[in-house]
């Protein structure tokens, strides 16, 4: 921190939930934390954890009632305290629809509570697939992450929707322009917290690192609790995190354990403009509920690269559930499945043509599949979940029905039961949600964050106007 401001109280960021609206945030520890004088309230509202469908279909998975609940609790306190509120990855996926939906909710809540006028910045980061195609035509590279090949035209053709993942810079600029509330599209989790810290004059290393520690709220504290508030600040070149729930503590172990949570490597966190290096971090307990960490470094990237997430529709899904208790059928299940697959192939050609069939063998390796170190050769009971996928819903239905009912009719040598080699839980073909795939987990080179990100400023005054009219 700069010398001239040392006497000041450090800038405090409050995080009430690790995934806004996935389940409602806990008001108790949040209101308690608001009493400690936070300088900003920030929360992440999105995740890739729910699979590719929400992005591909552009739907939210959280209930709107819970989204409204969390935004309302946060907005009322931020306006009461006169501090900024920042929400990233709006409405689970951070598409333009998600940003617009959250902006509309904030407007509604402001109107309902007749809040005095405030300034809202909506930051969009959805990338039209056409834009990515243009880049490809310009011979720009769309580089695959995690061992994925670079994206070509065919993968873009399979993509229905894509978002760019912003770092803190667009949010910092919005704060600098005077925004009181920020609703951002897809953002790096840590960037949502780093933005107000950077705006307050802190360095990127500690700002991003603190964001990384705080983004899942109380997950960095112990004992385990789901959605409790935590407070973080930077002072004297170190970051501090403090649990706000009366029964929770932030300890070196709990904070370090969280620093590595849901990430491939505990030492590096990549954002668009660079990378936080945590290799030399030192964790210390400073009081009962607070842990201090020093030693984070920031390595600025020579090029500015933004991550792109994309998802596309794969097909309609149908599901059937079959139980098997016969030890011979269980022993010969691979043959039974092959028999059923052949019956489907007789009608629609080989798997992969117009359909795909998946057999989930619960009891053997239904959870781990080929990664199962010791698949059970002969469990007492098997549950076979037959899942079909096809772009044609009728083909999906028939493939699933043939692929499951033929387990019942499979002709296996040495089978003692001839009335049906399987137990239908109920003779129905269930309609699953449509299937999507993650098509893009890639990066593109940009001239700066403004290349793919657009900000729109609003003045939210409906509530006040309505209040005055009364």
């Amino acid at each position, binding site marked *: 921190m700069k010398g001239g401001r040392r006497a000041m109280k450090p800038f405090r960021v409050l995080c009430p939930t690790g995934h806004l609206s996935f389940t409602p945030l806990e008001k108790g520890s949040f209101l308690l934390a608001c009493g400690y004088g936070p300088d900003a309230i920030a929360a992440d509202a999105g995740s890739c*954890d729910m699979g590719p469908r929400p992005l591909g279909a552009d739907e939210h998975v959280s209930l709107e009632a819970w989204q409204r609940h969390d935004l309302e609790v946060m907005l009322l306190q931020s306006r009461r305290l006169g501090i900024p509120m920042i929400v990233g990855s709006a409405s689970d996926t951070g598409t333009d629809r998600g940003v617009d939906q959250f902006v509309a909710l904030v407007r509604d809540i402001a109107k309902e509570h007749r809040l005095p006028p405030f300034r809202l910045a909506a930051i969009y980061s959805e990338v039209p697939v056409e834009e990515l195609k243009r880049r490809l035509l310009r011979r720009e590279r769309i580089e695959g992450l995690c061992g994925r090949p670079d994206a070509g035209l065919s993968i873009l053709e399979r993509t229905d929707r894509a978002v760019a993942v912003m770092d803190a810079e667009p949010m910092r600029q919005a704060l600098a322009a005077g925004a009181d509330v920020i609703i951002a599209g897809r953002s790096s989790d840590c960037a949502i917290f780093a933005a107000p810290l950077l705006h307050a004059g802190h360095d990127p290393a500690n700002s991003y690192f603190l964001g990384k520690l705080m983004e899942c709220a109380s997950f960095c504290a112990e004992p385990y609790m789901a959605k409790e508030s935590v407070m973080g600040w930077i002072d004297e070149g170190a970051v501090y995190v403090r649990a706000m729930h009366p029964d929770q503590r932030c300890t070196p*172990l709990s904070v370090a354990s969280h620093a590595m949570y849901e990430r*491939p490597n505990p030492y590096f966190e990549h954002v668009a403009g660079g990378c936080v290096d945590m290799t030399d971090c030192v964790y210390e307990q400073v009081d009962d509920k607070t842990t201090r960490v020093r030693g984070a470094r920031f390595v600025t990237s020579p090029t500015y690269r933004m991550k792109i997430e994309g998802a596309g529709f794969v097909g309609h899904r149908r599901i059937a559930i079959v139980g098997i208790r016969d030890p011979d059928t269980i022993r010969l299940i691979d043959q039974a499945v092959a028999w059923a697959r052949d019956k489907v192939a007789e009608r629609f050609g080989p798997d992969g043509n117009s359909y795909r069939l998946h057999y989930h063998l619960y009891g053997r390796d239904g959870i781990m*599949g080929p990664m199962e170190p010791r698949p059970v050769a002969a469990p007492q009971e098997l549950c076979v979940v037959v899942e079909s996928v096809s772009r044609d819903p009728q083909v999906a239905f028939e493939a699933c029905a043939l692929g499951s009912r033929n387990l019942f009719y499979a002709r296996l040598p040495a089978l003692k039961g001839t009335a049906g080699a399987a137990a239908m839980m109920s003779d129905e073909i269930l309609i699953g949600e449509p299937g999507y795939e993650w098509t893009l987990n890639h990066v593109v080179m940009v001239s700066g964050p403004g290349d793919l990100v657009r900000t729109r400023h609003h003045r939210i005054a409906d509530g006040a106007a309505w209040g005055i009219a009364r």
Partner: protein
Amino acid sequence: MTTLKDLASTIRSKNAGVDLITFDIIFRDRDAFVRVRDSAVITPARVADMFRVPPADITDFVVFEPARAIKFTIRRKVPSGSPGERDVFGSQQYPPLFEIRIPD
């Protein structure tokens, strides 16, 4: 005979983005951590073998002192949530680690 489950306080797996599953083995007890770490029983080759993936699919393997943890990450064969998914959050992939024997 001591197994990893006797010594670790947390053994978990979870998605790390859409293409990876990451595994955390965390020790509350410092001696237990040191014992497992120094035994060198848990190695990239060992976990690749256990989960039947080519060694190149172990993208990260780190002994993480601050959390008293061993952490490694495996590249998924198919991205999370694709049709045919077995474990959309990657949260039940850890149990085979329980039975790893740790020498005295």
